[in-house]
C-alpha cells in the first residue's frame, strides 16, 4: 500500500502544472488544429468544412509566400543581431576586457526593462525619415535619409534593430554567465600550453559553452519572432504590402483583423511545426552535450 502511494505521489505533484498546461496549451493547440480545416469568422454559429484548403492557401497564396520568406529574413537578421553580436561582445568582455564587466552588464541590460511599445514609438520618432533627429543631422551633411517604412527590407532591418535594443542585454548576460561557468583550470591549462586566444575560444570555449549557446540561439529565433510583432503592429502594420510582415503577425492579422480563423489557424499550425523542429534541434544538441559530459 505504502509503495503504491509512492508511485502515485509524483503524478499528484505534477497534476497542477499538468492541468494548467492542458487547459492553456494543449487544448488551444488542438482546437487551433481543428479550426484550421474550417472557414469561420469567429462568431457565426456555423463553420464550413474546407478540408486542406487553408493549408494549400498558406503555401500557394503569393502574400503568404512573401510572409514566409520575410520570416526567414527575420530569422537571419535576428540571429546576427541578437545572437552572434552579443556572443562576440560577451567573448570580448570576458576574455579581452578585464575591467568594468559589471558596468557593461548593467548598461546593456537597462533597455530590456522598457516596454517594447514604448521603444517602438520612440524609435518611430527618432527614425522619422523627414522630421526625426537623425534625419535632421544627416540633412546637415547633405544626406537624405531613406524612407525606410516604404521598403520591406529596410523596414525589417529597423524592426530587428528595435528588437535588438530590447533583447541584446538579456542575451548578452546569459552568454556571459555561460562563459563564466567554464572551469577556470581548463583555460589556465591552455594558457600555460601557450595556445593562442582565438584557438582557445574556437576549440575550447565555444564547444564547452554550446548548451547555453544553442539555448540562446533558439530563444533568439522563437522569442525574437514574437518580439518583432509589437514594432510591426505599432509602426508598419505589416506594410508596405506585407513587406515587413512575418508569420506571427500574419496569423494575428487573419484572426483578429480579418476574422479568417481558418487561414489564421493553418498559419499558426505551420509556425508551430517550424518551432517544434527548432526545439527538436535544441534538445538534440543540448542532450548530446549532456551525454558527452556524462
Amino acid at each position, binding site marked *: 500500500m505504502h509503495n503504491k502511494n509512492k508511485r502515485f505521489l509524483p503524478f499528484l505533484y505534477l497534476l497542477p502544472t499538468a492541468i494548467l498546461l492542458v487547459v492553456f496549451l494543449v487544448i488551444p493547440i488542438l482546437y487551433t488544429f481543428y479550426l484550421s480545416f474550417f472557414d469561420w469568422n469567429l*462568431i457565426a454559429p456555423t463553420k464550413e468544412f474546407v478540408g486542406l484548403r487553408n493549408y494549400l492557401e498558406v503555401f500557394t497564396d503569393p502574400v503568404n509566400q512573401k510572409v514566409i520568406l520575410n520570416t526567414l529574413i527575420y530569422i537571419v537578421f535576428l540571429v546576427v543581431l541578437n545572437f552572434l553580436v552579443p556572443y562576440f561582445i560577451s567573448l570580448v568582455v570576458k576574455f579581452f576586457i578585464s575591467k568594468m564587466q559589471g558596468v557593461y552588464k548593467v548598461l546593456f541590460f537597462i533597455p530590456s526593462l522598457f516596454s517594447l511599445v514604448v521603444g517602438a514609438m520612440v524609435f*518611430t520618432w527618432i527614425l522619422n525619415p523627414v522630421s526625426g533627429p537623425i534625419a535632421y543631422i544627416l540633412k546637415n551633411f547633405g544626406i537624405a535619409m531613406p524612407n525606410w517604412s516604404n521598403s520591406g527590407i529596410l523596414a525589417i532591418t529597423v524592426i530587428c534593430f528595435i528588437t535588438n535594443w530590447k533583447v541584446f542585454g538579456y542575451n548578452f548576460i546569459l552568454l556571459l554567465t555561460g562563459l563564466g561557468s567554464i572551469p577556470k583550470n581548463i583555460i589556465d591549462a591552455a594558457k600555460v600550453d601557450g595556445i593562442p586566444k582565438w584557438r582557445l575560444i574556437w576549440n575550447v570555449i565555444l564547444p564547452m559553452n554550446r548548451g547555453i549557446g544553442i539555448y540562446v540561439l533558439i530563444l533568439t529565433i522563437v522569442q525574437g519572432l514574437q518580439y518583432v510583432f509589437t514594432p510591426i503592429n505599432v509602426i508598419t502594420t505589416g506594410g*508596405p504590402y*506585407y513587406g515587413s510582415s512575418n508569420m506571427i503577425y500574419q496569423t494575428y492579422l487573419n484572426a483578429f483583423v480579418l476574422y479568417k480563423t481558418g487561414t489564421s489557424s493553418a498559419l499558426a499550425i505551420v509556425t508551430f511545426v517550424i518551432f517544434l523542429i527548432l526545439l527538436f534541434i535544441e534538445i538534440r544538441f543540448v542532450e548530446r552535450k549532456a551525454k558527452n559530459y556524462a
Partner: protein
Amino acid sequence: MKNSNLKRVLLMLGVMAMAVLFTACGKKTSATSVKHITYWHVNAQTQGGATVDELVKKFNDTHKNIKVTAKYNPDMYKGLMQNLQSAQASGKVPDITQVGWAYDNYFASNFKYMTPTDAAKKFDGNSKFIDSNFTKRTLSFAKDSKGHLVGLPYSLSTPVLFINKDILSKYNIQEDSLATWEGIKEASKKIHDQSGKYGLYIQEPADTWAQQGIMLSNGADIQKGGKAAFASAGGVGAYKYYQEMVNDKLALHTPWAQGMDSFIKGDVAMAFTTIAQASHIKKSASFNAAAIEAPHFKDHKTVVPVGGSMLAITAQDSEQQKAAWEFEKWMYKAEAAVTWSKGTGYLPPTKVALESSAFKDYVKENPMLDPAVKTLDNAVPWTSFPKKGLQAEQAMIDARDKILSGSDVKSTLETAQDKINAQQK
C-alpha cells in the same frame, strides 16, 4: 431558569422576524428601482475617456433608478469587437456598445441587438426622438447593407485639409487655390521647388478612409448595388494623381504617426486627415495652422465618407433595453453631445447639438472645426460591403500599398475590385 429560556427563544424569534423583514425589503428595493447597465466604449483617457466618465457620472447622479458603468476597451473598435465576441460566447454582453462604421455590417449580421427604431416604438410609442434629432443623411450612416438602422450615429468626423499658413504665405499661395486637388498639386510643386519640403501628406492608417474621399471627390463610387465599383475612370484618375504626387516627391508617403509628426514640425505644408486631429495640431504645432474643407477634383464636388461611430443597444432583457434606451437618449441631449464633442474632437451627431449656441461658441473658439461641420452636408456612409467587409477593406489597403510602391493603377484597382466582388457572391 425557565423564564430566561423563554426570553432567549423570544429574542431569537424576534431577530429572525427582523431578518425576514429586512430581506424582503431589500429584495423589493432591488427588484423595482435600480437597473444596472454597462456601456462599452473605445475612448482612452487621452481620447475623451475622461469626458465619458464625466457624462456617466452626471447621468448616474440625476437618475436614481439607472446606474451606468462605463467600460473602456483598448485598441479602438477592433479591440471592442474582439471583447464583444468573447462576451457573446460567455453570454454576458454589455447593454450599450459603441460600434465603428467599418464594423457596421459585421456587427449587424453576427450580434444580437435592438434597433433604435424598435426601441423608440416599444418604449416611447413613437419615433419622435429619432426623427427630431437626426437628419436623414446622418441616419444613413448607421444603416446596414439591407437599409436597416443598426444603431444611432454617435460621433461623426470628416476629413479636412489642414494647412501651414506660414509656409503658404511664404511661397505666396492663396488658400482659395487649394479647393481643388489640381490646385494642391500646383501649390505643392511651388513649395517643393523652392524649399525642398513636401507639399502634402494624406493619412495612411490601417484603412482607406481618406483615399476613398479622394476617389469620391473625382466622381467615383466605392460600391454600387452592393458591388465594388472603384476601378472606374474617376477612381483610377484619383489614384494616378496620388501616385504621381508621391513619385514626384510632392506628397509624403509614410505611416500616419510619422506623417502627422512631419506636418506638425513644418516639413509638410498640408495634411489631409480627420478633423479628430484638430486638437493635437492646435496643441503641438508652432506655426499658424488652419483647416479648410476637403478638396475635390475640377468639375466634381467634394464627397467624403463619414468617420466615427454609432451606439447600439446590445442588452437582451426588456428592462435592461429600456434603461439602455433611456441612457442613450440622455447622451444625445444637446448639452451632453456638446460636452462629448469637446472632449473627443468629433462632431456631435444631432441637429439640436449642432445648432446649439454652446457648440457654435465652441466652433468660434476653434475655427478648425468649421470646415468639418460644413463638409457634413457632403458626407456619405463609410463603405461597408455586405459580405466579408473587413477583408474588402484589407483588399483596398493592399491596393493602396501596391500603387504607392509603383504598381500600375488601373490593373491594381481592377484586381482589388474583382477580389471583393468574388467575395460578395
